[in-house]
């Protein structure tokens, strides 16, 4: 049952991502990407990571994508990605490169399949997760908090409005 749901969600996420990267309107792209993130969060839950699934929804779909949406609306970007020349001229080399890379990766994966079936399902409870995070990785948590502080200060510095300009 869970296996079937995994494949359905996987194809949903791939289709939503494919729609996302080909839209010309950035708002539509963001909405499709939020759909892909919902599918990905359910996949995380199926793989035994409920806390990561919740954070995928909260941080990615709830915070980061809404930030993208706000910026797109703030800049008042019309769907004006220019169309100079035919579209295949831009996508052709990229699709070729992607096909080669994906083909090589899939060949590697097929050549050495990692045996993972048959194990009992793994489930990391939030309690285990929190103990491991704050016991073994306490220093890393503090470094990450510094990083977020510096990012906030840097974003404010870059985005400030100078006095003479406006």
């Amino acid at each position, binding site marked *: 049952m*869970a*296996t079937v749901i*995994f494949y359905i969600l*996987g194809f949903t*996420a*791939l289709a939503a*991502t494919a729609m*996302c*990267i080909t839209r010309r309107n*950035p708002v539509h*792209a*963001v909405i499709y*990407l939020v759909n892909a993130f919902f599918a*990905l969060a359910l996949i995380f839950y*199926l*793989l035994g*990571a409920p*806390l*990561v699934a919740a954070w*995928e929804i909260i*941080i*990615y779909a709830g915070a*980061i994508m809404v*930030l*993208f949406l706000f*910026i797109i609306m703030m*800049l008042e*970007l019309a769907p004006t*990605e*220019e169309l100079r020349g035919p579209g295949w001229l831009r996508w052709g080399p*990229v699709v070729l*490169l*992607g096909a080669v890379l*994906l083909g090589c*990766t*899939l060949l590697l*994966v097929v050549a050495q*399949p*990692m*045996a*993972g*079936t*048959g194990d009992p*399902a*793994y489930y*990391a409870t939030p309690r*285990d*997760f929190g103990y*491991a995070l704050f016991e073994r990785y306490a220093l*890393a948590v503090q470094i*990450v908090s510094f*990083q*977020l502080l510096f*990012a*906030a200060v*840097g*974003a*404010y510095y*870059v*985005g400030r409005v100078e006095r003479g300009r406006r």
Partner: protein
Amino acid sequence: MIVPMAHILAFSAALFIMGLSCVLARRNLIMILIGVEIMLNAVGLTLVGASALWHSVDGQIFVIFLMAMTSAEVAISLAMVVYLSRRRGTITANDFDGMKG
């Protein structure tokens, strides 16, 4: 483990290469950042799959650090997009091909 690890790796590779092609083919700065987001999510999927494969919680913890890094990166880069758009009035990547010291 509900599916073989190879399928998770293949799915993650497909997502990663979609994000890579988005970064390479689009000219809009916002769409380039969205491609980077897709690639980081593919890496997170690999980490969660490996965490389930080896029955260890470390992979999921690294996904949390990845998310924190992504938040910082998105904050800085969107601020730069706003700055560039205020300066030049466009966010097409081809218009930002020169450096002035």
